[in-house]
């Protein structure tokens, strides 16, 4: 278990895209990181991943969720899904909509909760491709409320959470029942609704100017209005507060309309600003895909299913590796906070290029494993971090409990003192 877990955890750190890349992996440092003295076999790691049970994975996820980030605090949490396309032809797995490919195809999904204020992942849930955000919006929100215990939770959802008016009503009812919960979700732009929003009197809109797309660009003009939208089968008294954002686009293109359903009583601009922070969550997915190979998580369908037309679904492997990637994302963000200002908010790939993938020499003594990095530009920025890590006196259990020592190459000979 130790090797499988360590290898799966450090693979996104070093940029190991697929498990079969272990065949070519010949790095002594990675071998030590993965809990051995030589790199593990892909068959061993793949077998460990395939046999993860969902109950144990759920327990692992529950115990490693960073709930301390929002306990007793005001939290702004975004819930969204990430679709992982699958190209299997043998197994008939469920299809779902893959946004980046703009098509309906076989896929599996990972649903994450993301603290957009701290830029950290909070929770995860793996699901087949046909499961949508509206199916898991309520359970995920309840889980954050139950385990995180925030003073106030503002939950943000994409339009996928409110495809039907019943889904919108369910979320708003939960917000009404829970005093410390506010819900904001983007409304689906159904033609009839858009037509109604476009017919709002212009006096309802307030103009705001925002910086342009680049330095020197003309400022963007947005117009905000608040209205109430009556959901299907409901009366006008039950109408939902709706913030309508109209982004004016110069030229022949149409204006963009961004309607938001919200249970918040804040000013429209505040609601819009809070909802815009959800983009950090989407950015986290891009970092996951391009820097941590999020799309390389093991598949959830069971390849040993007797009937390929109806394969079983195993949530364990998909959710476990997806959550390990999220934990690495959180850990790298924590690490960046230790570094100088220019590294704050740096992506995983940036830190990997600048700090992680550095040549060096490993010295093994009877008492310690000494990691001696070759010189590189800007290494002085690491000195406080290295002193902190060395001060913690970490030991490596799988290397006869040797002490881990990190070292940098000295910048140059110091001036000799004395006569």
């Amino acid at each position, binding site marked *: 278990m130790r090797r499988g877990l360590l290898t799966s955890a450090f693979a996104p750190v070093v940029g190991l895209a697929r498990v079969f890349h272990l065949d070519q992996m*010949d*790095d*002594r440092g990675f071998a030590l990181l993965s809990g051995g*003295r030589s790199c593990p076999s892909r068959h061993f790691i793949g077998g460990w991943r395939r046999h993860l049970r969902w109950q144990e994975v759920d327990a692992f996820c529950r115990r490693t969720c960073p709930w301390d980030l929002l306990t007793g605090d005001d939290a702004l949490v975004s819930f969204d899904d990430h679709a992982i396309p699958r190209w299997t032809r043998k197994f008939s797995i469920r299809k779902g909509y893959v946004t980046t490919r703009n098509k309906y195809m076989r896929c599996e999904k990972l649903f994450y909760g993301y603290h957009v204020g701290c830029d950290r992942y909070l929770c995860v849930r793996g699901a087949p491709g046909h499961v949508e955000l509206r199916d898991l919006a309520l359970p995920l929100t309840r889980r954050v409320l139950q385990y995180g215990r925030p003073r106030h939770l503002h939950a943000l959802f994409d339009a996928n959470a409110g495809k039907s008016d019943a889904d919108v009503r369910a979320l708003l009812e939960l917000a009404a029942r829970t005093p410390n919960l506010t819900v904001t979700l983007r409304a689906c732009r159904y033609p009839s609704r858009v037509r109604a929003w476009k017919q709002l009197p212009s006096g309802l809109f307030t103009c705001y100017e925002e910086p342009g797309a680049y330095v020197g660009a003309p400022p963007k003009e947005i117009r905000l209005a608040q209205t109430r939208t009556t959901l299907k089968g409901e009366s006008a008294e039950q109408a939902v507060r709706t913030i309508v954002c109209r982004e004016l686009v110069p030229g022949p293109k149409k204006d963009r309309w961004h309607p938001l359903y919200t249970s918040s009583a804040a000013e429209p601009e505040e609601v819009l600003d809070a909802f815009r922070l959800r983009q950090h969550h989407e950015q986290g997915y891009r970092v996951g895909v391009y820097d941590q190979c999020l799309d390389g998580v093991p598949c959830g369908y069971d390849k040993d299913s007797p009937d390929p037309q109806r394969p079983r679904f195993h949530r364990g492997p998909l959710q476990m590796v997806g959550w390990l990637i999220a934990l690495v994302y959180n850990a790298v963000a924590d690490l960046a906070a230790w570094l100088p200002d220019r590294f704050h908010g740096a992506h995983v790939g940036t830190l990997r290029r600048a700090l992680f993938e550095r040549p060096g*020499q*490993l*010295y*093994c*003594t*009877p*008492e*310690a494993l*000494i*990691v*001696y*990095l070759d010189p590189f530009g800007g290494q002085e920025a690491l*000195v406080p971090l*290295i*002193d902190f890590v*060395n*001060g913690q006196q970490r030991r490596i259990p799988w290397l*006869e409990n040797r*002490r881990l*020592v*990190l*070292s*940098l*190459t*000295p910048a140059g*000979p*110091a*001036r*000799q*003192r*004395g*006569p």
Partner: protein
Amino acid sequence: MPAEAPDLARWLQDAAVPEPALTAAQRAVLHAAFRFLQRCGRDYYSVRLLSHFLLHCQAGLKVAQVARLLGLSRSAASAQQGLSSKEVVQAAHHRLAGRSHGKLLPRFAGPIAQFLHHHPEATRWDLLDFIRCTWGVSVSRVALHRFLTKYGLDRAGAVVPLPKPGGASPAQPPAAPPPPAPAAGPRAFTAAADSVGLPAAVPPREDGPLPLPAPEFFLPRPGTPAPSCCYPRPSTGSPSPRTASRTPTAPCGAGC
């Protein structure tokens, strides 16, 4: 002029060195040493240099006698017996540098390990010089000993660099003695034997044959569980219908 040693006889008497028992050579050496002390005084550096000389000049003086003559303890004089002149000068330099200042940080362990690996014969004084030149830190020998013990750098040959990917062994010291046994410590890492040793790049003679590489250069012999003669003769199988010669269809007789 030191007041406690007015003349040679008194100096020898105070040190319980019987003058009649001395040989002529010993008397001459001690006479010169006495004059050296009168001229240079009894400060640390003079006594240190003189004790090193008396202990290594092979005049036949015992260590205890030298210790009594110079006012040293027996153990201190004995500890100076095996030192080289360089180490004596380094010790003097270390004392000249004054009180220890600075601290040995854990991140110094990497360069120190590299230094010890490249200079396995280095003494503690060499290491102290390296530390002072690299980080401008002057530490005591006791502090250095504790640091080396803490990180397992105190035993010669215990610093084992792990081979880099591709089997490239780390740089070896140019004139280093043969590497120590890999299992120097109870938990020594035995990864140094991973690399495949190629013969040294000796320029071949023009008319002579090229030297053969080391046996490790070649792939291992394929292992077979039993001699090949024990196996059944491999069958080539029947020819495929396309390549098989057609059966002649010549009539065998008049009745066919």
